[in-house]
């Protein structure tokens, strides 16, 4: 991972910008009822290997910052909203997912899970400037 960041730095002009966006498994995905701004009725965690991979990515970015190869211009977190027609479709999605846990931790009774659902997943980003 660090070698990829070093390679990106090599092809950037002075003061060039690297945008790095990566999934943020430190935050559980949120399941919302009916709309992307609806009530949170469940959460979805990440599989253990995924968390480990994401930690390594975070460490790689921290490493190139510490070594002064880049400076941080901006960082933040975005949420991607993914719609599902119903809980069945969401479960089908999770059954094959390589990152998410395969089960929703529901916070609401079954009746509240009827209808359309939205999953919000966290994406962390860093905007780095070449030094």
């Amino acid at each position, binding site marked *: *991972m660090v*070698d*990829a*960041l070093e*390679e*990106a730095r*090599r*092809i*950037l*002009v*002075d003061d*060039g*910008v*690297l*945008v*790095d*966006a*990566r*999934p943020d498994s430190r935050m559980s995905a949120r399941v919302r009822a009916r709309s*992307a*701004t609806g009530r949170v009725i469940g959460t979805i965690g990440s599989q253990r290997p995924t968390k480990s991979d994401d930690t390594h*990515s975070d460490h*790689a*970015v921290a490493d190139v910052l510490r070594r002064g190869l880049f*400076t*941080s*211009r*901006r*960082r*933040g*977190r*975005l*949420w*991607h*909203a*993914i*719609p*599902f027609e119903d809980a069945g479709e969401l479960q089908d999605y999770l059954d094959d997912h390589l990152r998410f846990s395969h089960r929703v931790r529901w916070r609401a009774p079954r009746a509240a899970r009827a209808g359309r659902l939205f999953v*919000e997943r966290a994406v962390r*980003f860093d*905007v780095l400037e070449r030094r």
Partner: protein
Amino acid sequence: MSATANVGRLLPGGLGYLRPPAEIELAAYGVDLRGRRVADIGAGEGRLALGAARGAKTVLAVDPDRTALRRGRTEATRRGLRNVTFRYGTAQDLRLPDRSFEVVIFSWTL
């Protein structure tokens, strides 16, 4: 100097792509691509690269998946984009000249 931005901002996704439209995602990063030479490393089928091509001077999309690259080229042609190029490569060994891009994008690449 570092800053924290966009915490909690919600971008629309969709089952067709599971990621937001490229223009929306790129705008959220707050980087001006207009007139810039952009490299999208780990570009896949070029979702972000094709979105970036609308404003950038040139976009190079690099990925180790040749099938994805073919799809990206086809889509670029369909959209009439002439300033985007797809090339085989890996993030660790880009085989590109030093200091040749103003912006590099790693989206789910690390």
